[in-house]
C-alpha cells in the first residue's frame, strides 16, 4: 500500500508543479489534467469508488477541456514574451511556503500522526443514493439550482456584444449600439448612452 501511495503522491505533486511553472499554457492545462487523474486514483485507493470516477468524469472530462477552450479563445496558444511570473513572485512563494509549514506542523502534532487504522468502510452507490435522497435532499436541490444559474450566467457573460442594429441591412447605423447582456434585462433607452 505505501508503494502505490508514494507513486500516486509523486505523480500528483510533479503534475501540479509542472502545471504551475510551465510557460506554455496548453502544456500547463494538460499537466493539471494529469494531476486530476492522479487525484482520482488516490480516491480510488482510499475506497471511494463513486467519488473517484466522478472526479474523472467532471474534472478530466469537462473542466480540463473548458480550461483548454479558454486558453485557445484568449490567444494563449502562443509563447509569452516576458517572464510568466509577476513582479511580486517572491512574496507569493513566501506566503505559500509559510502556509505549508504551518499545516505540516499542525498535522505532525495532531492526533492524526498517532491514530490506529480503522477497517475499510464501504460506500456503495446504493448508500450514497439513499443519503442523497433522504438526508441531503436539500443540498441536492440547491446544487441543481446553482448549476442552472452558473450555466445561464456563463452564457450571458461570455456572449458577444451585438444588437440587431449592427446588421448591414439597416443601412449601417452602428452608432447607437446597445450592449448585449444588459439589453436582455433592460430594454434599450432612447438616449443611447453607454453601459
Amino acid at each position, binding site marked *: 500500500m505505501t508503494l502505490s501511495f508514494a507513486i500516486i503522491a509523486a505523480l500528483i505533486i510533479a503534475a501540479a508543479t509542472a502545471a504551475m511553472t510551465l510557460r506554455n499554457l496548453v502544456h500547463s492545462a494538460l499537466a493539471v489534467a494529469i494531476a486530476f487523474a492522479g487525484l482520482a486514483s488516490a480516491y480510488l485507493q482510499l475506497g471511494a469508488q463513486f467519488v473517484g470516477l466522478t472526479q474523472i*468524469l467532471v474534472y478530466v472530462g469537462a473542466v480540463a477541456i473548458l480550461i483548454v477552450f479558454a486558453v485557445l479563445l484568449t490567444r494563449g496558444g502562443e509563447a509569452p514574451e516576458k517572464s510568466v511570473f509577476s513582479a511580486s513572485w517572491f512574496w507569493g512563494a513566501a506566503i505559500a511556503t509559510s502556509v505549508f509549514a504551518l499545516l505540516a506542523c499542525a498535522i505532525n502534532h495532531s492526533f492524526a500522526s498517532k491514530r490506529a487504522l480503522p477497517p475499510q468502510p464501504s460506500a456503495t452507490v446504493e448508500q450514497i443514493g439513499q443519503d442523497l435522497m433522504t438526508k441531503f435532499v436539500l443540498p441536492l436541490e440547491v446544487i441543481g439550482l446553482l448549476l442552472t444559474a452558473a450555466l445561464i450566467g456563463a452564457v450571458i457573460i461570455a456572449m458577444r456584444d451585438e444588437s440587431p442594429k449592427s*446588421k448591414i441591412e439597416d443601412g449601417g447605423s452602428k452608432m447607437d449600439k446597445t450592449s448585449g447582456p444588459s439589453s436582455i434585462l433592460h430594454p434599450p433607452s432612447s438616449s443611447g448612452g453607454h453601459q
Partner: protein
Amino acid sequence: MPDLDQIFVNLKHWLLGQLEGILSASWLELVSILLSLVPILIVFPTLFAIMTIMERKGLGRIQNRYGPNRVGPFGFLQPAADGIKALIKEDLVPRAADKVVHLLAPVILVVTAFTVYAVLPIGRNMVVLDLDAGLLFFFAVGAASDLAVFMAGWAIRNKYALLGAMRAVAQMVSYEIPLILSSVAVVMITGTLSLPEIVMAQSTHFGFLPDWFVFTPWGFAGFLLFMIAANAEANRSPFDLPEGESEIIAGYFIEYSGFKFALFFLAEYLSLFAICGLGITLFLGGWNAPFAGLEFIPSWAWFFLKLITLMCLFIWTRGTLPRLRQDQLMNLAWKFMIPMVLINLVAAALWHFTGPGFMRWLTSGALLIVAHLFLGNPQFERKDIGKRTYRFAE
C-alpha cells in the same frame, strides 16, 4: 458435451489450478489478471480487422461498386495488407509540432478505448471487473478520451487540424449528455449501476417476449437516442464532420502517418464497439438469448451476434445518410435530443409507477410520441424564407 457457455471461465480456472502449486499467491493474482485481459486484447482488434473489410465491402455495395477485391479471396485479406502498409510507412512529424504531445495523443486514445472493456459483461460470469459503479466507470473513461482528441489536433500546429479538433471536441462533449441521460433511465428502473446486474435484470421473460428494455416504450426511445448519440460520439457518419473525408480530408489527424494513424483508426473502431457493447448491455439484454429455446447457443456468442448486427446497422447508416453540418449537429443535440431524453426519464418513471398492465404502455408511449411530435418536426422544417441578411465577422 462440455458446457460451451462457461468454456472460457472453466479454462481459466483449470489453468490457475495447474499453476497453483508452482507460483506464489501474488504471482498467481497477476496471472489471473493477465488471463482475463489478454483475450480482450486479442478478440477486439481481430473484430476491428474484420469490421474494416466488412465496412468497405458493405459501403461499396451500397454505393453500387465492389469493395476491395484484390487481396485474397474476394478481398478478405485486405486488413493484413492495410496493417503491413501502416507499419512500414514513414512516421512524419512536422518540424513545428510538439513532439511529446504528438506522441502521447494516439497512445492515450487507444489506452482509454481499451480500458472501457474492463466493465463490459461479455458472457455469463465473464466480466473483468465487477465494479459497483461500472456504468460510471465506462462514461468517465469515455469522457477522458475527448482530451486526447484535442491533444491530437493541437500538437501538429496546423490551424485546420486545430479547427477540426475543436469541432470534434464540441461535438463529443455535446453528445455525451444524451448518451449518459438515456442510460440513466435504465439505471432508474433497475436501481443499480453495476452492469452484470443490469443484464441479470433483463433475463426474465414476459410471455414469449424477453424482458429486454428495448421492448418497452421508454426503452425503445432510449435505445434510439443512445444509438444516435453513440454515432456522434464515435464521429461516424452522418456526424463525421470533424473527420469529413471529402472536406478537410482527415480533420484532426491529418498530419499523422503510419503507425499513429493506424492507432487512431483502431481507437475509433474500438470505442465504437465499446459503446455498442454498452448499448447491448443496457437495452438489448446483454448476453441473454431472446427465446428460451435458443439457450443452447452460448451467452458470449449472443453478445457478439448482437454486436455484429449493430455494426451492420451502423455501416448501413453511414452509407445512406448525408453528413450533417456543424450547426445542424449542435442543434440536434441541444434542442432535440436533450429535451427528448429528459422526457424519456419521465416516461420511464411513469412506466414504473403505474403498475403492470396495459395502461402503462399507453401513458408512456403517448408521452413519448407527443413529445417527439412537438420537438421534432417544428424545429427542422423551414419556415418562411425571408430577406437575406448579412453578418460580417467582426
